[in-house]
């Protein structure tokens, strides 16, 4: 019986394990040093805010694993011997109560689902007490320990985790200053209107947003505890906590050799890590999620695609892509080599009270081949952006804030290249808001008609519910 070992019990690793179990009878072991059981990383914020208890973030009851013959091992992997097909566990030192005994385990096939770690860009003071990111269970624990004693926090980096951290701290009555390097919020991803909409809502929650503001250094006191930060413009902000949310990087440090063997002269395309594993920013994989070593696969946040699918980035650290990679690699491992084909892009988030969903491609800056249509409600909290091809008018992507939309409907509209007119006429079909919610499709249509001089009318209604009445 083959032994498949998976390092990492996050959404990628666990999805792979579940699907391998569905497709085969092989022995499966999942290793994690972080927690005993799979939990939803995205829900850590709700544990901190008291919406949930940690146990609620576990998507499967504890008996599930034994029933499905998925062995769980709690340990940190120290290194991997790719020749011998063996993993070695870290021997815990005395302060490290989390890790269990050392030892080793052999595998026939190995899936690396190592996840990522919060970025630290070598700032002075970045390792002081009270400076941290928000990624792991251990980060949550440290946050819970530190923050009851503080009254002012600085968050560095304007992205999703930053907003979540701001909301978390705000829920405990902690004053938050949010340093954003860019001139508006998350504008590496968001078009400016959406970026401003989010920024307004963040400010409405009494978070102090400081744009075009970069961290210079973090200043500590005599106890190595953070007491202030200094920005590049020289401003000093007193604080007892610094949240570093400037993105994440693949968690591959333990696979790197002390001096990575540089391949090529100037800009190396990759380095060779432990056992000759090809690494760059992440673990390099081909379309089949195979690494350059036989029987070694990589999925999830730690992956860098050598040939990413069309319209996709080579690093895409999203819950959903991790899950899709897990589903895909399970097929390959179980004897049916399958390419990673994530289909139409989608993502979602919640900024304090405003929900956001996106389907297809909505870049922050549009190229000339595309046009965009944007509607915003007078409340400034609801908006819809639809992008479409300039010549054929086929829709290519949508951003929706404050209106829930159907994944399935947008998936079909975008992949079958429906025109912007068709989409607007049928927009209620995509509406996924609860019953009785106010609908804005007519207003959205009106704006389009005004802008383009068209005279389109709504052709469909929302769901069956409207048909009954």
């Amino acid at each position, binding site marked *: 019986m083959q032994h498949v070992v998976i390092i990492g019990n996050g959404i990628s690793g666990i999805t792979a394990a579940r699907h391998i179990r569905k497709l085969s009878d092989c022995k499966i072991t999942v290793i994690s040093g972080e927690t005993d059981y799979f939990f939803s990383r995205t829900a850590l914020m709700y544990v901190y805010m*008291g919406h949930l208890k940690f146990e609620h973030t576990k998507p499967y009851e504890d008996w599930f694993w034994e029933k499905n013959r998925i062995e769980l091992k709690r340990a940190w992997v120290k290194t991997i011997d790719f020749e011998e097909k063996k993993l070695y566990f870290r021997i815990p030192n005395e302060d490290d109560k989390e890790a269990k005994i050392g030892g080793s385990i052999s595998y026939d096939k190995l899936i690396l689902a190592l996840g990522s770690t919060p970025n630290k860009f070598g700032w002075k003071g970045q390792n002081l007490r009270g400076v941290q990111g928000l990624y792991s269970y251990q980060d949550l624990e440290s946050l819970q320990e530190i923050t009851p004693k503080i009254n002012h926090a600085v968050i560095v980096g304007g992205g999703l985790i930053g907003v979540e951290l701001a909301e978390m701290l705000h829920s405990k009555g902690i004053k938050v200053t949010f340093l954003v390097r860019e001139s508006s919020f998350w504008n590496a991803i968001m078009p400016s209107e959406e970026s401003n909409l989010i920024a307004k809502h963040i400010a409405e929650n009494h978070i102090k947003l400081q744009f075009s503001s970069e961290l210079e250094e973090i200043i500590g006191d005599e106890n190595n505890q953070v007491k202030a930060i200094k920005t590049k413009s020289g401003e000093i902000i007193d604080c007892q906590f610094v949240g570093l949310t400037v993105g994440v990087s693949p968690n591959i440090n333990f696979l790197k050799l002390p001096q990575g063997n540089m391949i090529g002269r100037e800009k190396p395309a990759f380095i060779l890590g432990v056992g000759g594993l090809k690494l760059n920013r992440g673990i390099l994989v081909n379309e089949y999620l195979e690494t350059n070593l036989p029987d070694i696969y990589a999925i999830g946040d730690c992956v860098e695609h050598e040939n990413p699918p069309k319209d996709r980035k080579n690093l895409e650290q999203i819950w959903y892509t991790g899950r899709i990679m897990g589903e895909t690699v399970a097929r390959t491992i179980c004897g049916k080599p*399958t390419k990673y084909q994530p289909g139409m892009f989608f993502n979602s988030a919640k900024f304090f009270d405003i929900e956001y969903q996106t389907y297809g491609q909505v870049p922050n800056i549009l190229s000339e081949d595309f046009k965009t249509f944007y509607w915003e409600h007078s409340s400034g909290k609801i908006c819809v952006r639809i992008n479409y091809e300039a010549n054929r008018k086929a829709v290519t992507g949508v951003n929706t804030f404050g209106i829930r939309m159907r994944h399935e409907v947008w998936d079909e509209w975008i992949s079958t290249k429906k025109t912007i007119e068709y989409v607007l006429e049928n927009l209620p079909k995509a509406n996924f808001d*609860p019953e009785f919610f106010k609908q804005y499709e007519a207003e959205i249509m009106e704006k389009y008609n005004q802008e383009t001089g068209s005279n389109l009318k709504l052709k469909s209604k929302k769901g069956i519910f409207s048909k009954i009445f």
Partner: protein
Amino acid sequence: MIQKLGLIIFIAAFGLFVGTLGMNDYVLTNKILEKNVKADQLVDAQKQFASMFNKNYSSLFAFAYDLTSGTNTLNNTYDAQQAWDKKYFEDTILAIVKDSANGYLVENKEIMFLLTFGLAILGAFLLIIPEVRKLAGIKNNGIYFNPAMNRKWLGVLIGTFLILFYVALYFKPQYIANWIMIVDPVSRLINGGEASRWFMYGFLYTISVLIMGIRFIIKYRHSKYQVIRTLSIMFFQTCIAFILPEIMSNLNLPSADLKNMWPLDYSFFFNYRLDKLIAGGTFGIFLLVWGIVLFVVGVPVMVYFFGKRWYCSWVCGCGGLAETLGDPFRQLSDKSLKAWKIERYLIHGVLAFAIIMTIGVLYTYFTGNYNLLGFIPTESLKSTYGFLIGSIFSGVVGTGFYPLMGNRVWCRFGCPLAAYLGIIQRFKSKFRITTNGGQCISCGNCSTHCEMGIDVRAYAQKGQDIVRSSCVGCGVCSAVCPRGVLNLENAATGTRIMIAPDILLGNEMLK
């Protein structure tokens, strides 16, 4: 600041309310006995209670205790003599206690009402209304740090209070006679008479639904579904369940809670109620027909179109209390597979019990024979059901366990009507909770805040619709979902996705 003041006022008023049980003096006189006991009980009663006559009790508890022991002794004698019609019931004992009471409370019921109920309501509003200042949206911050909402000391305390309250209300109302007297002014206003224990309970129930309903509306004011649904609950409890029956009886009509139906209303087919309806002329017959049509036609038709939510979370009184007073405790329901198993045995067991009991009662009603099939004693079937299910399960456990097992203990594990609605919802209904493609992030908010203990996430993360007999359609899973994944919908019955797809939407790998 205002909220703190509100809390202080509320606690003070509640403390005073509990304290009223220590008020008044109690003196039993022969006259009071004569007024409250039947002629054939009087001689025995005078002999039994002679030692209590004209003795001044300063404690309600001591007085009610002596009185109850006395009636117990008498009841034992009557049992031995098989003179069951002479036996004492709680309401007689309660009436004697009330007549024997004198003191500040008796003379100043209005003031005491204002100081207890009035101040408690004021305090509650001061606590609740300022929440409007927060931005609209899901604000479940800190519920798991709150000792009341996390099965900690305060939750246990509240649960204990509720359990004791229900035990007293159902079985020993004489010990809470003063609470019943406090609402006399309201009762007089509405029906001209003194408050019965059921009036007191109905009043308390209704103001709980109203005040906590307002709290719920403020909490979920960004969701029109929640606002309208809660207004519906508040309307049905206040107008249909509380006021309308009072008006009916004021007009000397047979009174009924028009929205309550068999088998939740398990005594609907009891002989005394059937007799009363039949004696009530056209209106009585209308009520009888209405009550039958409601569960024979109303339930299947409405559940087919809308799911059981049309009743359980929009109309029902038990559901109404759970959704309002019980909302702070919704997260405490057990989501495990084991709990689901127990739930299915229990609730369908109760439904079977209710059906057999009712068949027995009707059999006896029409044939005069007290043994169904020759060996099932219908009277004890009836009284066992009334005691175990009607009082203990639905009241003491159903509400008393809110802070311990969540706010839908009765609806989930016990209600026979919910079981009946649920069977139709599961097998023949347009209703489902739709999962939005592949957007679920398994965060667990939906499951945690499901009052019925459904592991919503287990379905959502597999891309499966949620079709469960127990779902009452409260819509909170959809409200707390941070990614817009869940939606309550009605569509063609065959379109419910009951089997999880192999892979979720968003993965286009070749098959």
